């Protein structure tokens, strides 16, 4: 917070000429993301393994809650690996990470609303049209 305040103070003046107002960073602040190639190959391999696993869920015809939970687990693991390592979110500034990661989680509220809504639609369809096609 202290840092944010300092920066907010330092940068709001329009050419007022404070000493600390000049941006300390270079005109183009580039944060280098240099990691060993091996890291990407390992993540790549894991994505292959997880994709193969989720395909196997279908191949072996698992069904019910086992199928759905496995699909969701493999999906979240893959998404996490891509965002954290390929998209470098694991090394980004927390302010950016939270600004990007938190809003999509709120979509779950929308999901819950639409589940109720869709159940109600199905209910009215069954009541008024019967359960035959």
């Amino acid at each position: 917070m202290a840092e944010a305040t300092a920066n907010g103070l330092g940068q709001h003046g329009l050419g007022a000429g404070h000493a600390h107002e000049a941006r300390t960073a270079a005109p183009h602040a580039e944060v280098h993301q240099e990691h060993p190639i091996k890291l990407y190959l390992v993540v790549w391999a894991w994505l292959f393994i997880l994709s193969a696993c989720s395909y196997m869920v279908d191949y072996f015809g698992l069904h019910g809650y086992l199928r759905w939970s496995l699909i969701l687990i493999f999906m979240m693991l893959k998404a996490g690996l891509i965002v954290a390592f390929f998209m470098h979110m694991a090394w980004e500034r927390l302010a950016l990470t939270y600004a990007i990661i938190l809003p999509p989680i709120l979509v779950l509220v929308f999901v819950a609303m639409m589940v109720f809504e869709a159940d109600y639609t199905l209910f009215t369809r069954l009541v008024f049209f019967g359960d035959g096609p």
Partner: protein
Amino acid sequence: MTHISQTTPRPAGWQGIAADWSSDQRAFKNVSWGKAMMWIFLLSDTFIFGCFLLSYMTARISTRVPWPNPSEVFALHIGGSNVPLILIAIMTFVLISSSGTMAMAVNFGYRRDRRKTAILMLLTAALGATFVGMQAFEWTKLITEGVRPWGNSWGAAQFGSSFFMITGFHGTHVTIGVIFLLIVARKVWRGDYDTGRRGFFTSRRGHYESVEIMGLYWHFVDLVWVFIFAFFYLW
């Protein structure tokens, strides 16, 4: 926080509003604006695809008619037997591989290895084009089998509309990504980011960070496919 409100005098009206909103108050500090804006664009794109998957979920829950079994619909007849979802599985592996090559291209870009960066980006674009080609094959197959946005022979009519809209939008994203990959790869190959050559559209000098920002978009396309694969094809 009161001292934040003390600013230099603002012009009245819209100019004042614009001055307030653009008064150099950076929330993301050392994150460059290009990368931050790409992330914010991707966030908005997340909501677009989120709404598509939500509408698909709503349609699938609320229909009285059984949903077509994707495992059978997307099966391919290979060697005398039907292999379930095999084309989709191959497409998944192709897209993941393209993400892998893109991640390494970003890495070599920061090491100023122009040759490897450009080659890996071209490889990424080739894999992306392969993906789009396989998707075109899949669409052709389904359309000849009589799948239409308003109906199909296996069950719920909403299957077709959900399928064409979700995969169509994703395929469009992949296609746009391939085009931009080729543009950025050309810039890398030519050494634009080393010589400081100005871009033809923005007239600004590029940086090797452009490769990473391009990579963010590409990984996002892969990320969306992870969700489409799970919810549309496997569920």
